[in-house]
């Protein structure tokens, strides 16, 4: 069930109405049933996987909790490590099998082929379960939090199962922490009108980003990237820039819908994006992009690896490892690994050259607090991020390098003059709407940096507020990409 489907527009109000109609003690059961129903709409058998993951991490939490009670600290530590290791290994084994099996087979076959040996030919099909990376990471974070004594093990299996499967953020995050969401599952949420309105506004912004922007821009991006040899370097640059817009709108759109939906029901999910394209460095970009994942990797991989506590060389190595794994988390393809590696490399180079850059700016008397300097930094950051997006979007590594080669060795921007832009899959009026939407996005993000836009709107007079609400609904209804001519493209991040 996609957020941008009619089914969800019927499902969500029904779930919410009954949620508030039920007594507190029955609400979590209702949400659990609805969450599993939501997930099973894709494929009912997927529920077995999420249930397995839930059971393993729940039991590991219980066992770690019991180990904590062991009077022998050494034995307790050993037992805790055993249970956490078992939880991680079994969960990651499921993830690796379902997500990376074919990737592994392809790579093994590439090696076998080079050695002229017989290729591996699996006799079964594996379908990637939707959102497996998200709920696996969320469940693992619980195990780790219990292991670190950050939280007490959850006793109620049902409520824990709801924590893992909570439908608004089940398939594409934000990847919640037990300290935040699990506690909220225990709390009683009364209906709050203001909160509902704010949640709906956040959802509307998410729908705008996804349906009006991401899916519209995707038409152009897909046209160019799926047949990149037919397009000039200028078209490839335009498509790459617009992919940056697409992936941001697609993913943040999902996150906003999830956050808004949860808020209506009284749950507060963590923010996942803080206007990342306004960042002035790669480091800042990762503080603002997919925050729930980047903090997950920081807390559960980078810091356990030693973080920045073991010298510079080790810090950079840890960074590289973290970003390579992050890349692999995004998809079973070398393009994602390179994408992650590039971001790791950016940060390593950024760290290494920082003293030099500081000296240079000082020597040249550059005023780093000026708007122009920050604009330049923002532009450079965007270019670096967008360059990496080429690997993220391209269909293969060879395509990525082909695109980059064409952009840098055959510069041709002549298509910008005349009707070249119209020949990239988006007709004139559609392109105008897409470009206008980008302006709306930039303005919206800028305002969001300065204030909470939804709250600011809610402070306005009733008539003005309603005009805004109705205008947003009308814009999405008219300019949204949906309906029978729409190839119901899923949210990009579902595949992760």
């Amino acid at each position, binding site marked *: 069930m996609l957020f941008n489907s009619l089914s969800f527009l019927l499902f969500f109000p029904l779930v919410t109405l009954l949620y508030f109609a039920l007594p507190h003690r029955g609400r979590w059961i209702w949400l659990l049933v609805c969450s599993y129903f939501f997930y099973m709409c894709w494929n009912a058998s997927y529920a077995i996987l999420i249930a397995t993951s839930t059971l393993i991490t729940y039991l590991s939490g219980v066992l770690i909790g019991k180990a904590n009670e062991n009077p022998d600290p050494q034995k307790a530590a050993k037992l805790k490590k055993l249970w956490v290791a078992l939880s991680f290994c079994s969960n990651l084994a499921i993830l690796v099998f379902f997500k990376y099996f074919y990737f592994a087979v392809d790579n093994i076959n590439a090696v076998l082929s080079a050695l002229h040996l017989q290729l591996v030919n699996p006799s079964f099909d594996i379908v990637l379960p939707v959102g497996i990376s998200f709920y696996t990471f969320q469940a693992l974070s619980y195990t780790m939090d219990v292991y670190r004594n950050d939280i007490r093990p959850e006793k109620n299996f049902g409520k824990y199962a709801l924590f893992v499967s909570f439908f608004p953020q089940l398939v594409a995050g934000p990847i919640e922490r037990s300290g935040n969401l699990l506690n909220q599952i225990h709390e009683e949420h009364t209906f709050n009108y203001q909160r509902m309105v704010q949640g709906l506004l956040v959802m509307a912004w998410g729908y705008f980003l996804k349906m009006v922007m991401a899916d519209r821009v995707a038409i152009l991006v897909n046209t160019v990237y799926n047949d990149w040899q037919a397009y000039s370097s200028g078209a490839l640059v335009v498509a790459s820039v617009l992919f940056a817009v697409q992936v941001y709108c697609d993913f943040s759109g999902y996150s906003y819908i999830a956050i808004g939906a949860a808020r209506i029901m009284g749950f507060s999910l963590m923010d996942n994006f803080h206007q990342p394209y306004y960042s002035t460095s790669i480091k800042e970009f990762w503080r603002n992009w997919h925050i729930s994942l980047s903090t997950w990797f920081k807390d559960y991989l980078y810091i356990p690896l030693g973080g920045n506590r073991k010298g510079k060389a080790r810090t950079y190595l840890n960074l590289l490892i973290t970003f390579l794994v992050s890349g692999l988390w995004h998809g079973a393809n070398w393009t994602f690994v390179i994408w992650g590696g590039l971001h790791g490399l950016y940060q390593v180079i950024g760290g290494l050259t920082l003293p030099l850059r500081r000296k240079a700016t000082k020597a040249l008397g550059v005023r780093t607090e000026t708007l122009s300097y920050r604009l330049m930094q923002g532009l450079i950051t965007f270019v670096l991020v967008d360059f990496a997006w080429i690997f993220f979007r391209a269909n293969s590594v060879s395509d990525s390098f082909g695109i980059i080669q064409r952009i840098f060795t055959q510069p041709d921007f002549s298509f910008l003059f005349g009707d070249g832009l119209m020949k990239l899959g988006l007709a004139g009026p559609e392109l105008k709407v897409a470009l206008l939407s980008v302006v709306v996005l930039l303005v919206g993000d800028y305002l969001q940096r300065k204030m909470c836009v939804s709250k600011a709107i809610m402070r306005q007079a009733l008539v003005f507020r309603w005009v805004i609400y109705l205008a947003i*609904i009308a814009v999405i209804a008219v*300019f949204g990409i949906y*309906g029978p001519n729409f190839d119901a493209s899923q949210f990009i991040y579902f595949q992760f």
Partner: protein
Amino acid sequence: MKRNGFMKVKRILCTILFLALVVGILGVIEQAFRVRKPSVTNMYEEYMNLQENTLDVLFLGSSHNYYTVSPVAIWEKTGISSYVLGGPSMRMNVAAEVLKKALKTQSPEVVFLEGYSLSYTTPQTTPYLHYIYDCWPFSWEKFQSVRRVATDNEAVKELMFPIMTYHSRWKDITPEEIETFLQAEESYSGKGHIVNYAKSSKVVLDGSLYSYKREIAETEKKALEEIKTLCESKGIRLVLWAAPSGKFNEKLANNIQTLADAHQLPFLNLNEPGHIAAMGIDVAEHFCDTSHLNEYGAEIASEFLAQYIQEMGVETSQEFAFVAQWEDYCKLYHHRKQERLLRGQNTASKFLTQIQNLENCTVLFVEGDEMTNIRPYTSDRLAELELLEGIKDKKSRFVAVMNANGKMEVTSAESGDTKLSRQFGENAFVLQTAKGENGLGSITCNGKELLPRKAGLGIVVYDNLRQEVLISAVLPLKSENNKIIRAS
């Protein structure tokens, strides 16, 4: 406590009002963006607005049905009130659904079911179902009906919420469509009849154009049974019939006859040579394509059907007030028909030729330039049409103005005084002096300029029966190939 209670009520009311506004806006968007083909959708919209129990005969079926049957022709011959409901390639199960809905508001004496619908096997496509279901109000009844005929769940959603289909038309909407929507123009479908004046020369009626060899599908037989049962339960006579078509063959005719015999239903096959001859169907003149009759063919086929209906003993049960409505409707029908015929002409000579065929109309000509320029091809015809005396000889320009009392005044440009007047039927037209901008003639009616200020021969056609302007146009002066410029 009281304040909290008041706030709660206020918020509930606000929420209801807001949701109503949202539904309203989405409804307006859907209506505004809906494909406004003046055809099948209008047929259903108009049916929904019919006064209850005002039909004697209902025709049901595929495109053959609505191209062939002209309820106006049937009314004018027999005084029997009929209506056509159908859809392109309409399957029998869809016909059954349409009939169920149709019989909620009407109780005809006879239902004519076009047999071509029995020949289909592929599911009804969703776009075709849109024609039928778009004007059904959102309801449980619609949902149940859609579920029975839609190909899949996606189609059900699409048909229940047509905005899903039409919203993406925002970039294709023409100013004309917006104008039509804003003006909420009187919908018109010819009582379900689709008018087509095209002529096809590729028609043969020996069945060679159609390779139909199948037996009638069980699904269609089942749907026919359902239709028959429904008709029987309401005391309605059911007649199977087949419209004249180049794509009708003996196999299909035999299949329908067998089925009709099995169900003890009459089968009127208008493709039989005897009927074709009796109607006077000329394949070169009476088909718009290889399958369907054009308007000329429809008129003669409908007269034949009217006779058949009379022979069945069907008599009109309509009251006098309704008869008056039908008379008005017939006027509208002929008005639109004549307008359509004129609009279909794309050269000056064809336009002028068509003008000679008009009935119950007044034609007003205004010079847009020196009259001498148009003489080579219009002067004789102007004389034939008994034009305003003196106009063709004057090298002056005129502006005609319709008075509040419905009189059109036309005055010569030079003097400013009323010089000419002439009675056309019950309508007095008076010429009034004025000078058009840029030295070009123009005609205004109730403040609305009817002719663009372009050089040429300005023509305004006035429908004497409907007492309204039918069409206005400027014909090019020097070349017959120049495009006709129309203001309305």
